[in-house]
């Protein structure tokens, strides 16, 4: 795991994306965060950065790509995430009554 593969939390540059990098958008319906990741970067890093920025507990948020829950070890490659795809961020749901 190389250090330079860390996610970039800056908004994507208008032009000239880095070769081989994928721009993804994380949205929780209120905020949008853009990441530039390598295809082999595990999503765990993206999640941790997102939670850090938003001040959330990692246990209480869910990341979904096209209705599929993203695990920490998933990568853009395994999930077939294309450039410009959006990742949905949901809150934990609890129900009893």
């Amino acid at each position, binding site marked *: 795991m190389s250090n330079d593969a860390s996610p970039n939390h800056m908004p994507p540059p208008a032009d000239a994306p880095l070769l081989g990098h994928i721009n993804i958008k994380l949205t929780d319906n209120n905020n949008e965060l853009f990441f530039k990741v390598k295809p082999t970067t595990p999503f765990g890093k993206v999640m941790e950065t997102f939670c850090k920025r938003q001040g959330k507990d990692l246990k209480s948020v869910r990341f979904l790509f096209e209705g599929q829950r993203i695990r920490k070890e998933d990568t853009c490659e395994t999930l077939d995430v294309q450039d410009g795809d959006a990742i949905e961020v949901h809150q934990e*749901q609890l*129900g009893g*009554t």
Partner: protein
Amino acid sequence: MKRSAGDAGMDSYDMDQYAVPGAFPTDDPAAAEPASSSSSSVFTTVGIVVLSLLQWLRPTYWRRRILKTDQPQQHTIRAEPVSRDSVGRKKILIDAGLQHQHRSSPTKSSKASKQTIPLTPLNTFTIRGNYDETPTPQDFNNQHWLPNGSIKPLLRTPDTLLPRTPRPLLYTPEPRHYTAEPLLHTPEPLQAEGPLSELVASPVESHAYPQTWSEWMEGLPDAPSVSPSPSPPKKATVDDFLDTTLHGLATPSKQASPRDDHAATEDDDEGLEMSQLSNECADDFKDCVEEATKSPEAKQAALYNLRIKTPESVRVSPDSGRIIRGDAPPTPTERQIHSQQPTKQEPRLTLQKQLANQYLKKYAIKALFEQPPPPRPLLGDLTPDDQKIMKDAVQEWVDDGKKKDKKLGKVSAHDLGTILPVIFDGDKAAWLNDEIINSYLSVLVDHVNLAQGYVYKGRSVVAPPPAHVFSSQWYTTMTGPKPESTITWAKKRHVSGKNFFECKLLLFPICKGLHWRLVAVMPQQRRIEYLDSLTSNDKADALIMSTIHKFLKLILGNLYNKSEWNEHVGQRSQQQLNASDCGVFTLLNGLALLSDSQFTEVLVKNGMEAARLRIASTLIKGKVTGERI
């Protein structure tokens, strides 16, 4: 039994041994007491004279005199209180002839009438005459049986002595207790105290219905061993049962019966009637069994009917030992009354009767229930293997320092804390979170799909799955700003457009207002089912149903036609007993749908502990552990 008569025409009136059945109430108290007025005493005297004159006209009287036969035979009628379904205890006592014995304030107050009135044996009638058979209560309705006027005959036959009308075959009975002992017209046991309690039928030990059929079988006696015919096969099919056992029935009971001179003359007739009975009974039972194989309800009804039918079909005539059909009118000498302990004159009749019933019933019941094996419970009992899974997981988690984000199988320790808060240090509310719901339903759906040979091979290989579950975030997305994004959810799984109708079942777990519920869509039946374990009315949540329709329209496009979709009205889910189990019910309802079971198979308990353990062990193992799916 024999005792000398005190006087011609006078019958001894004994109060020590037996009680008289409900057939002989004395409505008028004056009739039972000695006549006080002069006019009634005149009538009594005249009555005695007339009765003794009538003795001269009776053929038995002269026969005895001329032929110098034995002492006049004395017959003792013994009978006991008979209870009815529709009347209370007081009425039973009156019927039992105890009205004047215990008149201690039956009308004073309801409290007094509720008191336990000790039953004492009441009356024994000893009647002179050369009668071949013990007289029956019905004979008392004939004048010549009437004793010296102290007992009035009944104007009508008591209900308890009338044959019961069989219910229609498809009548669905109320759940009730069945007795394994097939006696004919067994009166319901009286809870009597005192010396009569010995005479009152000791209740046959009854089991709650339904019980295990094998257990029931064991309660029935074996086939008669005296039969010269080969013993019936262990697994009797319907035809075997009809062919072999019924013909075997006639032979052993006939041969087992001791032959006296009286019966020997009718041997041929007897055999003939027995075989006729066999054929007719065979038809009855064949009908029963054929009806019963149609549906479970019919089976229950048939079993019930069988119980009714048997006594009607088989009746034993006491004078010849012949079995006669229930349709035939009872002969005067035919014994209708039920004595709990058969008298010594008729052991073989009782034997025949019981053999006929039990033998037929045993194989009819066997034929009814041999097809379906007893079903496994929806959630299997926790086995040592399951406990080991749990123990290992907990040990692993503890060894790792009880980290909340420790992954245990499909979910994390934090998630498991929502379903088993005691074990995994969760919130005591025990509310399930979305991870548990989504993961468990995914495990079940994957299992079902795999069983049908389906494996998801990515977006490019278009193949609709037999079943699919949308994650619980589907609802929040649909109600969010971008509901269109769920189209890609469906497309990715090949459940949109035309492919949608290839699926059999789509599950939508929904968390709305801190409450879990399940929506099931069956595309092929165009059916939407809303399953809520906590609902005050049977209506579905309107917002959720409109969201479902909105989604269907999104993924179906032109194929969507709202009128052909029917929402299942009426709540079919079991209801939770507390404020924390809705997630468990959501999962189990999904399991019931996926395994094609009834929702009623979800066993309702407060806390659903066993179900929670089962779900947790399945999640830790990552595949189905004990579920019947």
